[in-house]
């Protein structure tokens, strides 16, 4: 009879005798995978969220006088030399006035007695999506302030600062809780697997006394680890998927997801999580069993 077949039979038999603790292990693995992947999902999405928020950023450089066209070209070059940007738009006094009147709409008459030339001309700089860090923005803005003829740079400093802190806070929370949770999950899986082995230590000792080879003892545990790692993490990922779509349905509003573009794991990452938890379960049992194999 082939050893593998025997191992399968043995694993099946073991399951019949210890299904309670096996299901417990499976649930523990599921819960751990759920927790871990939940935070991983949030972490990756939060990191992206910062980028999206930064995408709306616009720095307006106001000038005292309308610069000459060739001056504008030079200014644009100076800016792009310092840092790559998405685009730069020149807004002349006229355009600024047009914009304001458009903005006011029906209330255009407010401007009736106003000199259309009172608004300063400006260069609107749209930084690239990856410029999301407050200190980088500050640096950029300081550079822009020093451009010849520039009198002021505006970019909603107050709000951006707040946003930056908010994002920072969110990251601290996500990282700390992630760390805490991964600690917990590892602890739980290690503990549960160890207990499963301890619960069967009597059986293992007897098998050793009867002359069982290492293979004979290890194989069923490997199969079990494979099974538990796979089913456990599949179950955990499935729960996360359900949770994810529930949250998406529940809190969905187009404007919400305009800012936070949440997305689920790619197939690759799902595969990696499955493999990692299988490896963890198998590694866990084999490590806790090592001392029995020496008897």
């Amino acid at each position: 009879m082939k050893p593998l077949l025997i191992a399968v039979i043995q694993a099946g038999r073991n399951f019949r005798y210890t299904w309670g603790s096996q299901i417990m292990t499976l649930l523990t693995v599921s819960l751990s995978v759920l927790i871990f992947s939940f935070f991983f999902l949030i972490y990756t999405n939060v990191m992206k969220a910062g980028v999206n928020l930064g995408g709306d950023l616009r720095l307006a450089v106001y000038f005292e006088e309308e610069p000459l066209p060739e001056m504008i070209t030079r200014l644009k070059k100076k800016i792009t030399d310092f840092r790559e940007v998405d685009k730069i738009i020149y807004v002349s006094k006229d355009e600024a006035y047009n914009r304001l009147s458009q903005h006011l709409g029906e209330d255009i008459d407010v401007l009736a007695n106003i000199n259309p030339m009172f608004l300063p001309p400006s260069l609107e700089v749209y930084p690239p999506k990856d410029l999301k860090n407050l200190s980088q923005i500050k640096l950029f803005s300081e550079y822009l302030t020093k451009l010849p003829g520039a009198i002021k740079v505006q970019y909603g400093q107050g709000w951006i600062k707040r946003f930056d802190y908010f994002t920072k806070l969110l990251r601290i929370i996500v990282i700390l809780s992630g760390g805490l949770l991964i600690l917990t999950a590892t602890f739980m899986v290690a503990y549960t697997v160890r207990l499963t082995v301890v619960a069967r230590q009597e059986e293992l000792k007897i098998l050793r006394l009867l002359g069982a080879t290492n293979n004979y003892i290890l194989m069923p545990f490997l199969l079990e680890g494979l099974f538990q790692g796979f089913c456990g993490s599949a179950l955990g990922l499935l729960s996360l998927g359900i949770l994810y779509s529930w949250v998406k349905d529940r809190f969905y509003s187009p404007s919400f997801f305009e800012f936070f573009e949440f997305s689920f794991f790619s197939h690759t990452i799902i595969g990696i999580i499955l493999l990692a938890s299988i490896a963890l379960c198998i590694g866990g049992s084999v490590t806790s069993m090592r001392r029995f194999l020496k008897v």
Partner: protein
Amino acid sequence: MSKPMVELVSVTKVYTANVIALEDVSLEVDTGEISFLIGMSGAGKTTLLKLICGVESPTAGYIGVGGRNINQLRPREIPGLRQDIGMAYQDFKLLPERSAAQNIAMSMEVAYKNTSTIKRRVKDLLERLKLEEKHDTPVSNLSRGEQQRVAIARAVANSPSLILADEPTGNLDPMTTEVVMDLLEQCNDAGATIILATHDEAIYRHTKHKVMKLHLGKFQNCNS
């Protein structure tokens, strides 16, 4: 003369500083022999058997089984040795939730025996030991004497060439004792060497076999 199956030379076993279980014990058991090991409670009988099957290692001395020094075996050789020695432990060492049949089968399963062979052998042994009705009963639901017989059945199931029986009839009435002794003698006829530790005078009083008496870890006036 054939090589001795079991050979001990000046074996000493010290558990803790003040517990010297065996002291300078030498002994030889020939292949195919039956020997009785007797002695007071605590004399070191179980220790001696455990040393022979390699469950305990000696503090000093040489232990040979089938001509090989069992304390110099490589780790991968140990399972093979144990499969060839059938030990009926004094405390049985059965798995309480498993059925009598499964417990007996274990010793053959670890040797990767054929499933149908195992089934036949288990059934045969249970019948011989008058346990046919307990085939599927979990060992924890058996009476102590029934458990003892299961332990003996497991020890002989794999047809080992050396059988170590530690007090195999302590929980058995005279009639059942005879059934067990018959089984052991049959194994002996089939070629197995047997060492039997016992307190039961009825078994060894009128025997023609070798009787070795341990006292406080040393042999006393062995007959032969």
